């Protein structure tokens, strides 16, 4: 008995030494103590769980479908009856049901920008509450002052409202903050920069600042040289001083495309929108 206690004591002592040394190393790296590090990790995990829960609610309670065995088992059949697996999305007013989980996600981790952005997007689109979407994004901005994505989202909201000066201010701020902590070579991050530049270019064009607008369009071409419609627009602006499609019309088209893309985007793999229902 005494031997077992001695061995256990040595194990506990060794483990505590290892944890203490690691915590000192981690503290010197991040500036946070072990307890704070654990608390921080816990908050992030909790926030991610709430965000996943919001995603599950968006799919009417259906969790991510993973590859399974025992498909022919009687238990599996009953499981599928009790827990429907069909891919569905919430729509209309019922989209509000995901908001409590997004709120909890942002409360658990105020740096969970994606949760703020998703909440703001659905509040502004299906919820038709642009005022609340602005409130959400303002809170997100206070908690994450260096994030460009929030500025981009806010610019879109202002453009939808026709508030061009505010939208311009947000695009400029967004471009200054881009790419933040993100990888500037990532396609999604580059697409965001292109969007900021595109909105800025159209706003400049609308104000009659054609050389500045052309400059912004050229910056888009630097990122995505294959965009022929941008090339054509630059050519039209250079030759005639105006483009055939008015900037306001192009803005409307672009905003509605962004909205439609946002509504259709789904984090789940193998997602085919022609293969499932969108429930009210």
């Amino acid at each position, binding site marked *: 008995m005494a031997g077992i206690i001695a061995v256990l004591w040595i194990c506990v002592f060794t483990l505590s030494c290892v944890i203490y040394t690691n915590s000192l190393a981690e503290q010197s790296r991040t500036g946070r103590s072990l307890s704070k590090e654990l608390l921080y990790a816990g908050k992030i995990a909790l926030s991610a769980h709430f965000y996943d829960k919001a995603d599950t609610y968006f799919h009417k309670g259906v969790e991510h479908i993973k590859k399974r*065995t025992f498909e022919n088992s009687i238990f599996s059949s009953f499981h599928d009856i009790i827990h*429907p697996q069909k891919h569905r999305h919430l729509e209309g007013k019922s989209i509000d049901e995901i*908001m409590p989980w997004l709120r909890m996600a942002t409360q658990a981790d105020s740096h969970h920008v994606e949760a703020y952005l998703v909440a703001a997007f659905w509040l502004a689109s299906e919820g038709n509450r642009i005022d609340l979407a602005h409130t959400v994004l303002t809170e997100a901005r206070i908690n994450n002052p260096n994030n460009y994505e929030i500025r981009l989202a806010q610019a879109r909201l202002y453009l939808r409202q026709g508030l061009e000066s505010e939208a311009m201010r947000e695009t400029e701020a967004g471009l200054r903050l881009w790419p933040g902590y993100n990888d500037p070579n990532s396609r999604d991050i580059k697409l965001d920069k292109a969007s900021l530049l595109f909105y800025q270019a159209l706003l400049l064009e609308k104000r009659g600042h054609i050389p500045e607008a052309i400059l912004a369009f050229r910056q888009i071409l630097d990122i995505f040289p294959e965009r022929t419609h941008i090339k054509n627009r630059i050519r039209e602006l250079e030759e005639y001083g105006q483009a055939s499609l008015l900037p306001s019309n192009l803005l409307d088209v672009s905003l509605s495309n962004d909205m439609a893309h946002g509504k259709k985007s789904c984090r789940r793999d193998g997602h085919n929108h022609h293969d499932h229902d969108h429930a009210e």
Partner: protein
Amino acid sequence: MTKGLIIAVTVWLKVIRKKDVYVLLILLSALLSWLTTMNIFGLGGTTRYVSDTGLLLAWFLAWILAVNVSARELPEEENRGTIFSLLAKPITRAELIIGKWLGAWTVVCTANAVFYLAIWAIVAVKSGYIDPSAMIQGFVLHCFALAIITAIGIAFSTRMNFDAAATISFVFTGASLLLLPRIPEFAVKEKGLRAVVMSLIYHGLPHFDILDMRQRIVHDYGPVDVSTMAALVIYAMLLTVFFLVIAWLAYRKKLFSRSELM
């Protein structure tokens, strides 16, 4: 049967004296009330998260209560020495087991009914709606799941003290509740002996996941058809009887020595 009912009544009296149920009910109501006061980006009218969290808590609290009440009964009789006066009466050990199980099960089901009523009331106060037929079906299946859990608690308590029986019951039922539904995902990459073991665990442990209607209630999928309901009730009843038979087999020849127990 009457003797079993009398024993069940004594279980009720003990639980009422201990006040566990009231504490759990207050805990549930307090948590749900706090949730309803949450500011959700200035939006109102969302209640699904309240019913979801409420039902999750109802499952969790009823599970704790079921294991505690069922695993406590027989060891407590033995510790107090009242088992001798009980067995001196014209009562068989099967009747004792059934009486204890019935008492534990009905107490837990009653507490569960109060939990469901509290959830329904809090959701109704927030102008939410829960499909009553799905809710009733969910409650009935939940009660049958609790019948299995209490039978497991009783079965373990026939040969262990309260602490050991409760711990083993928590581990066994906890694995069935949380781990079992994930086994088909874990087993995808397994081959050979591991796959066989996974298959045995999957088909051998009680499937509480098929008795859990929370998704259907919360996300408005409505009730299941009568034949499915009947099949699930029969499955739960068979498992309950199975564990009660095991409890009886373990208890029928158990010898009690006054000097060891007192």
